[in-house]
């Protein structure tokens, strides 16, 4: 299919807007050919994921773009960096590692990014609106912004996010087009008790199941009565990790799914999966990994980065404990730099650190090689963390609610 280019596209391809934009356009045009797009579209904002994973080739690539005069053309916020921005880990990370991350950070700043350093940008940036064309990386954020807001992005790979940011252009294909956003596979909830439907654990387990079963089809979930933004975050992250879910519809909850007919755009589902309590329990069990092998020695909350609601829940649970009591295990909470400012102001940071808690700010444990071996068995409320931890951290996983995680951190015996 021939790709129609505008005058401005051609100008960039010819190098008249600088070498970085030219290289970026070359990549965009190649991708357009692969996906059979006949035109490009403007995008309003970008979420750059490529800054998170530290590789020598990645550093070389982004520094080359800076040397070529690259500057982002649209607001472009960033995913976490592979370094704890509280600077508490400087001694263990080592100067060589830190200097590599500094190179990454400085290169992206030189490109003109908005340095949010968070994997949950939907919790803090100026959100796009329903129907807005955007280019976001980070699989959990893609699923969230497409589904919960109804903005339109494809599941862009790292490096393409930078190219979109440097040009403000992407191929018009896939989830950018309304007709490609219709559901294909129906998940129908069957007799799940209300007390389970209300829990974060339910959303994580359902997300994992939907991701695994859907692969790259667009799932529609029917039977959710209500969902908080936090629960939708948990679902998005689990579904996007266990499968290739870039968009899901929840009937009566998400904006493109007021009804079944709207979610499927009038068509019939290709497949229907009945989700009952036992199937859900099986998913919860699968999210745990070798959970009987050894004792829990770590707790992790905040994958994706913890919201203020999650922090408030933890704060309420800690308020019932003794002032001087300390956590009996490593308790990690992952947050954005913006959230760190807020919890410093409201005192939670001081309360949490006093008990021996560990804050990971603007970063992610999966991307901190110097911390990876600290624990061998985590309990977590995060479906995404549970999914990747066995491979990434060589750790066993138990799965529980935030309340159960905090209880375990305080040394209480909890039946999960």
């Amino acid at each position, binding site marked *: 299919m021939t790709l129609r280019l505008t005058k401005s596209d051609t100008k960039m391809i010819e190098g008249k807007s600088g070498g970085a934009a030219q290289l970026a356009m070359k990549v965009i045009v190649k991708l357009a050919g*692969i996906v059979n797009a006949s035109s490009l579209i403007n995008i309003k904002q970008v979420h750059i*994921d490529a800054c998170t994973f530290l590789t020598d080739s990645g550093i070389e690539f982004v520094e080359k773009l800076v040397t070529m005069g690259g500057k982002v053309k649209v607001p472009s916020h960033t995913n976490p960096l592979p370094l704890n921005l509280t600077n508490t880990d400087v001694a263990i990370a080592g100067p060589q590692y830190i200097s590599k991350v500094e190179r990454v950070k400085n290169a992206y700043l030189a490109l003109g990014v908005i340095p949010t350093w968070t994997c949950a940008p939907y919790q803090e940036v100026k959100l796009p609106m329903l129907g807005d064309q955007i280019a976001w990386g980070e699989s959990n954020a*893609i699923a969230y912004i497409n589904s919960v807001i109804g903005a339109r992005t494809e599941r862009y*790979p790292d*490096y*393409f996010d930078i190219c979109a940011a440097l040009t403000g252009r992407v191929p018009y294909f896939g989830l950018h087009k309304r007709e490609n956003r219709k559901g294909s596979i129906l998940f129908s909830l069957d007799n799940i008790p209300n007390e389970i439907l209300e829990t974060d654990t339910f959303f994580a387990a359902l997300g994992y199941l939907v991701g695994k079963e859907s692969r790259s089809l667009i799932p529609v979930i029917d039977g959710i009565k209500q969902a908080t933004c936090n629960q939708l975050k948990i679902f998005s992250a689990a579904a996007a990790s266990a499968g290739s879910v870039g968009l899901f519809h929840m009937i009566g909850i998400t904006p493109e799914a007021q009804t079944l007919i709207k979610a499927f755009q009038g068509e019939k589902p290709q497949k229907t999966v009945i989700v009952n309590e036992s199937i859900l329990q099986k998913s919860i069990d699968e999210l745990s990994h070798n959970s009987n092998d050894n004792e829990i020695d770590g707790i992790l909350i905040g994958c994706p980065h913890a919201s203020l609601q999650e922090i408030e829940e933890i704060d309420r649970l800690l308020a019932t404990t003794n002032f001087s009591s300390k956590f009996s295990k490593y308790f990690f909470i992952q947050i954005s730099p913006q959230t760190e400012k807020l919890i410093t102001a409201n005192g939670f940071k001081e309360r949490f650190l006093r008990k021996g808690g560990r804050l990971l700010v603007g970063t992610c444990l999966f991307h901190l090689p110097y911390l990876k071996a600290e624990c061998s068995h985590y309990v977590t409320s995060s479906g995404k963390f549970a999914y990747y931890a*066995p491979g990434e951290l060589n750790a066993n996983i138990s799965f529980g609610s935030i309340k159960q995680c905090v209880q375990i951190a305080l040394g209480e015996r909890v039946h999960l």
Partner: protein
Amino acid sequence: MNSLEIMGKPLVSGKTEGSLLVTDQPLSFWGGVNQFTSEIVDRRHELSGSFLKDKIFIFCGSKGSSTGSMVLLELLYKGIGPKAIIVTDQEIILTMGAIIGQEIFSIVTPIIQIHHEDLYKTCNFKYAHISPNGLLTLCP
């Protein structure tokens, strides 16, 4: 057994050859492949423990993380990447890694798309030659 030819669609074009590593399960390269060793580390995956280095890797396509492109690029940059990747589903994550590999580092790693039913035919073979036009020649 004779060799078998399968015509694929080249997403990234190139010529190479190597021994096969085949699965019909999707795999996320980030979180699923170790960028220092090329080992498949997704412990829920049937190929957990296998290495991608120098292989012609045949599978349905990526799942999960958008960072797969960076893992692939790093494997190629360090010389421990697969020789080629054959997919059945539309695959832009790994394709992006291969495109950057080509544009920035002049490393050519063919990415070829084949029909889903052809994936199962490849299981009986051990080696393949890839041509720039997308032709796979599978050898026993």
